């Protein structure tokens, strides 16, 4: 039984070979993730309404702030307002305050339903990642576009002129979703040990809200706090995609931004795999 602890090489192989499944399986899972969220139309409508209201509140707050301190953090007024609406548009997509798969996964661990996921010939992490990517795609369309359009109608936003910038932005958002998944997967797995992981999840949500740049852009954070905040994984969720959108990265800087996001994504996914293997091997699956 000791020989079963083959470490990272095994996980890397599993990741690349898609052990226990194939691309089509995870495509079906992702499509399922999309459609599951698309089922709840009223919730989506209510969410869009909330995003829009908060967009307006934050926009007027930022206007007051930037009137006092123009070019705060290197952003002009219309860039700052664009940042606000991007935040609303990506709030659910990058699950900055949760709202993704993590509640469900924790509940499955708590009740023991995780047993059903474990006997399947599929990889637990890839399974939930695929589902979360599907969810994120839905939230980008369902919860992102309308607030962004309303924001653009009401305020003078700095929208990119080049289609390449839009494309670069989407790549950055996709990386942000994977980083966000990586964090939430780790926190959700803590339920194997904590039995009730709600506390850990709330800490992660708060950290996400603050360190993603949702409340204030991270360049506004002073000194060491700012540097730490910008180096943490959460900046991949909003700060980096928003700066890509605003054209603050060009050429090698853009690649460096991607490398930052991609590095966190890989590190978090690998950490998730290790925790997953410890969890499923050592810990009792709850329930009879």
């Amino acid at each position: 039984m000791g020989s079963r602890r083959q470490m990272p090489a095994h996980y890397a192989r599993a990741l690349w070979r898609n052990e226990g499944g194939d691309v089509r399986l995870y495509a079906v899972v992702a499509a399922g993730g999309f459609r599951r969220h698309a089922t709840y139309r009223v919730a989506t409508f209510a969410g869009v309404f909330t995003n829009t209201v908060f967009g307006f509140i934050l926009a007027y707050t930022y206007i007051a702030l930037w009137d006092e301190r123009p070019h705060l953090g290197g952003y002009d007024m219309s860039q700052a307002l664009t940042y606000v609406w991007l935040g609303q548009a990506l709030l659910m997509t990058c699950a900055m305050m949760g709202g993704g798969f993590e509640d469900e996964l924790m509940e499955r661990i708590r009740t023991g339903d995780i047993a059903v996921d474990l006997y399947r010939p599929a990889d637990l992490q890839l399974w939930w990642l695929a589902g979360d990517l599907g969810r994120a795609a839905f939230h980008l369309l369902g919860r992102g576009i309308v607030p962004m359009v309303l924001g653009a109608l009401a305020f003078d936003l700095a929208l990119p002129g080049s289609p390449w910038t839009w494309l670069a932005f989407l790549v950055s958002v996709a990386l942000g979703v994977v980083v966000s998944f990586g964090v939430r997967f780790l926190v959700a797995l803590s339920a194997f040990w904590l039995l009730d992981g709600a506390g850990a999840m709330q800490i992660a949500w708060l950290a996400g809200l603050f360190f993603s740049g949702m409340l204030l852009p991270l360049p506004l954070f002073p000194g060491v706090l700012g540097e730490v905040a910008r180096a943490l994984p959460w900046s991949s969720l909003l700060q980096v995609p928003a700066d890509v959108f605003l054209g603050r990265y060009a050429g090698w800087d853009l690649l460096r931004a991607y490398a930052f996001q991609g590095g966190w994504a890989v590190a978090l996914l690998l950490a998730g795999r290790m925790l997953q293997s410890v969890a499923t091997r050592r810990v009792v699956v709850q329930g009879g």
Partner: protein
Amino acid sequence: MDDMDFIELDGVEKVFDVRRRTGFMRRERREVRAVDGISFRVPRGEMVGYIGPNGAGKSTTIKMLTGILTPSGGRLRVAGIDPSRQRTKLAHRIGVVFGQRTTLWWDLPLRDSYRLMHRMYRIPDSRYRENLDRCVELLDLGALLDVPVRQLSLGQRMRGDIAAALLHDPEVLYLDEPTIGLDVVSKAKVREFLRDLNAERSTTVLLTTHDLTDIEQLCKRVMVIDHGRLVYDGALAGLHEVGESERTLVVDLERELPPIELGSEPSVRVVKVEGPRQWLAFPAAVSAAPLVARIAADYPLVDLSVREPDIESVIAKMYVTDSRV
């Protein structure tokens, strides 16, 4: 592996470390032997009942048989595969239904979950369609395919789950409480389906249940587990002898009389008297005919019936006997 040893367990154990707080900052470690040295063989195509009280170790055994729990000791093989080492490989050959859990996508129509199984088990298209059609017909799922799972009744969902477990032609099916919470009609439907499945496809079935009617109707062989040990493995009929079971003779007399006394039959005793009706218990192995003749000769008999032992009480007796050891 040959077909006689399709499922093989040799002295399988599962020990859990349970940590418990016993005081401020103090913890006590305790070993719980959920499965304590179980050995059995199940040949291919057999339908076996696996029963026992709550916490006896049934689900732990099933979890080891699927590979999601690693045994702490002993040897375990399913279709020649070590489940915990080759969980994914084994998964393609087994089907699992946990009655209280679902493998179906809660928010989406039943059909979507089946499409997922199609991809997950890499079922060839023609085979998938054939199996799905068969399950839809026999489990009466036609009208339900486009209904979101959350809107299904428990019985409908269970039938949906059973179909999901069978689309990839598993050679073994583990059923953990497949009829729990179902109404009589749904139970009958599920049992009939399982019987046909076993007969036509010789799928090996390991059935865990609290409903002994399931066992009576489906399994010739039954294994009883208690405190992590196998306390009985054999024919269902044999359980009665082991459990020292008794049959009951219900006698209606013409009028109220003192309890019947049959001097020559010391093993018979009256267990209950209610007006002119009396209940007599006698060992299951003893023939009822001479008893009836004696009573008819000595008492004003109006009517009588013989009740077969209730298997539930037989097993309850076994548990009591076992825990006294």
